[in-house]
């Protein structure tokens, strides 16, 4: 059934969506015709992420548990809270720890901000791991999706590195010794272990230089990388035919 598009604004929603400014941004109103619904995707940025139509089975919760989307959502929450935290943080000793105490007792909603970032980070590592397990058991890594699986492994490593570099920043006992335990493993790498550790820490021990390096990695380099790889990862999901829905029925014949 085709509904006529009202020419004059009838609700506040119409007033909001039927003007040149709104249309210049999203090009389409919140129209309920399928033509405009497809154009909402087709003529917008969303085409990079989503096809115009999706298989009903692909958007069912039990198909993917939305684990990839939830990982991306957590990353979004982490970027937002992370930027706010950067306003209150100095990557130097002992200022970093004082800033933690400020966040705890002085900054408005500081504990909430830090808690959200902390639990969000743990949640993201867990969600990314679960996403990988789900994709494996579905067999979704097979051609033509094999390179997207590799990008997923890269994203997993980046997620763990992000979480790990962030672990040092509070500069408390937990942070210091947690990172010391991890970086001591770098010593075991044959031939270049020591120089690798020196490069990572800016010294032979976890100290002020290490804090600054981890800060730059955590706030600049790794986020840029993960967003870049994530964009390609999500784009390829669409290019490879969307969410994997199981083996095609073996009817064939139209080869």
């Amino acid at each position, binding site marked *: 059934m085709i509904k006529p598009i009202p020419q004059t604004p009838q609700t506040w929603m119409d007033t909001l969506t039927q003007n040149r400014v709104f249309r210049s941004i999203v090009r389409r109103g919140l129209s309920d015709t399928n033509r405009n619904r497809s154009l909402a995707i087709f003529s917008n940025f969303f085409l990079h992420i989503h096809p115009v139509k999706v298989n009903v089975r692909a958007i069912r919760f039990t198909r993917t548990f939305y684990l990839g989307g939830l990982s991306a959502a957590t990353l979004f929450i982490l970027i937002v809270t992370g930027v706010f935290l950067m306003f209150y943080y100095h990557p130097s000793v002992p200022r970093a720890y004082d800033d933690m105490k400020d966040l705890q007792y002085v900054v408005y909603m500081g504990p909430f901000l830090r808690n959200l970032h902390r639990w969000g980070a743990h949640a993201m590592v867990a969600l990314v791991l679960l996403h990988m397990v789900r994709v494996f058991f579905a067999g979704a890594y097979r051609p033509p999706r094999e390179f997207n*699986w590799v990008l997923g492994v890269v994203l997993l490593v980046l997620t763990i590195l992000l979480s790990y570099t962030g672990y040092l920043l509070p500069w408390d006992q937990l942070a210091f010794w947690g990172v010391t335990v991890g970086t001591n*493993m770098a010593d075991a790498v044959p031939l270049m272990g020591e120089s690798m550790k020196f490069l990572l820490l800016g010294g032979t021990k976890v100290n002020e230089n290490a804090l600054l390096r981890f800060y730059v990695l955590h706030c600049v380099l790794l986020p840029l990388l993960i967003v870049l790889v994530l964009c390609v990862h999500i784009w390829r999901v669409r290019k490879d035919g969307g969410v994997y829905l199981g083996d095609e029925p073996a009817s064939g014949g139209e080869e």
Partner: protein
Amino acid sequence: MNNPKYLLEADDDARKSPVRLVVVQGERRPAVDAADEPQVMTWPHLMLREAIALVVISLALSLLALFFDAPLEEIANPQKTPNPAKAPWYFLGLQELLHYYPPLISGVILPGLVIVALIVIPYFNINLKREAFWREDIKRKLLFFWIAVIGLSAVFLFTSAHPVWPLLIPLWAIAGMMMIPAVSSRRTGWVGWLGDRSLAFWIFLWFLVASIALTVIGTLFRGPGWQYTIPWIDGVY
């Protein structure tokens, strides 16, 4: 490549070459295969679900952040080593392995192998179609299967400082599960389901169960001096 049907010529003039607009090949695109199935519009059906998912995870994490405080201990002190000094939870599986193997093996070679193994999974040509492991050639497979299980058991029993139980017990449990369809004559029900699993499935399952076992032991059951502790009696370190 055996004689391609079409050659697209390379040339500096992008307006002249290639001259044809489109070449339709008999290549199968995944999206085309399922064209007959019911479909819905992405806007609003999928994007609304995404928005709801974003709201739900934000709400869940916000509630967590309201009621549970992130840990903050005293200021870092290089002179005062806590006992035990633990890495974040996702590294505790590796730290637990450190208890059995020298750092070169547990901290470099094994995690490196895991990453490489994960990357090559889809390029590993053997059984990309994920055929059931016991489908054919059972006698030869049984031989290799037992050589592999006994070999791995020997490695994890005798090459480490202590027998690596978190790897061995999942290995034996999964080997046992794999044997059920090999010895049973049933081809239906859960035995049939087990029989339909591929080798890749079993190896990944072992990796998964062993990682979880190592991580849980490292997180909850290890205390001062990396000795076993009982979390509900001694607390979590």
